[in-house]
């Protein structure tokens, strides 16, 4: 069965965050990311995380949905945190992990409050000046949206691959997990490419 993940999925709503146009909102997300990375210290990072969680609550993203979506990121964050504790101590670990989770939550709030169509238009508008340099804004915008769409797909493939390995008693065999996962991800990318070609997207 397919699982649902909040990252990349729009949640309709009427909050102020939903009403801010996609372009300015993307700019704010970028600025927020820069500020979160520039500010130092574990307490500041924890404050940033708290602020991101407040944004998620404001956007009315159900906490359970948010936590379910963050689960894979939390696993990575724990791994990074353990490495930071070992190398630089607890304060640095808290700072790095809190900043990563804060930015992922903020990105989730952005995608949850912005319809993909508006996001595509905003990215296309923003990149229009770069057309002279050979950049195709439509293709870049489409690549962004495909990336967001691919996140739940690839996670679902990972779950299916793990289940298949478990069914054969191979859940502890990295090769039984990584090789089929890589092959299925490439096959998925090819299928997506075929679908885009069939719909005439990228023909112009």
């Amino acid at each position, binding site marked *: 069965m397919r699982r649902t993940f909040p990252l990349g999925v729009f949640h309709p709503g009427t909050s102020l965050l939903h009403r801010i146009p996609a372009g300015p909102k993307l700019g704010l997300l970028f600025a927020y990311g820069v500020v979160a990375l520039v500010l130092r210290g574990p307490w500041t990072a924890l404050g940033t995380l708290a602020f991101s969680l407040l944004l998620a609550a404001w956007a009315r993203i159900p906490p359970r949905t948010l936590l379910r979506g963050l689960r894979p990121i939390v696993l990575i964050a724990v791994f990074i945190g353990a490495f930071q504790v070992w190398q630089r101590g607890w304060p640095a670990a808290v700072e790095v992990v809190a900043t990563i989770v804060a930015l992922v939550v903020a990105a989730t709030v952005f995608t949850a409050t912005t319809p993909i169509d508006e996001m595509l238009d905003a990215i296309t508008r923003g990149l229009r000046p770069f057309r002279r340099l050979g950049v195709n804004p439509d293709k870049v915008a489409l690549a962004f949206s495909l990336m967001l769409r691919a996140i739940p797909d690839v996670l679902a493939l990972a779950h299916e691959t793990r289940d298949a390995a478990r069914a054969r008693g191979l859940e502890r065999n990295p090769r039984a997990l990584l090789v089929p996962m890589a092959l299925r991800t490439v096959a998925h990318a090819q299928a997506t490419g075929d679908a885009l070609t069939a719909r005439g997207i990228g*023909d112009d």
Partner: protein
Amino acid sequence: MAHIELDHVSVTAPGGGADDDVEILHDVSVRLTEHRVALIGGNGSGKSTLARLVNGLVSPSAGRVVVDDLDVASDGAAVRRRVGFVFTNPAAQLVMPTCAEDIALSLRKLVPDKDARRARAVAVLDEFGLGHLADTTVHALSGGQQQLLALAGVLAIEPSIVVADEPTTLLDLRNSAIVAERLFALEQQLVLVTHDLELAARCDRALVVEDGRVAFDGPAAEAVAHYRASVSTP
């Protein structure tokens, strides 16, 4: 009615070794003008490859594919505007997160205004009984709903030909019937790749594809009978 012409078309793909190309289709020449044409045959016979030639998803290694007087090799973009393609697995065809966004993607060239595009997308979904799911993530849909959404996305651009590659294979009986009825209600020319011989028999013409060749081409009932006989012969 639209027409599709394959003129001495062969398709090869690289094999396992350095020089051994595998021939998937061999010297196929057909002209399809009927309203509904079925392609039937065993797994790996080449029928899906034949269907994919029609909108340029597969390129011939020899010969020519022409759709409504447009050569697929040189006028691919124009052909794809005329030919809608429905895949076996709808999940692979749906490339946007929500139903309305996926239909809107198809409409981006046709309807430049964002609000008008959204309204048109919802109207298309309504036609397929999916209007209430406009803002639902495509992951949350059942297989039948996903296939209907994929079909809606194809028909949104008003193609003159619809090619459907085993569109009911992954569906349960009820959803299979719903999708089949939608396909057979189309005014457009339909090229249907299927293992469902009852569906194939409802078409105006059927081609039996075996080992990369058209083994039988004629009225659907006769083609189905030929295929059944060839399968039951040891």
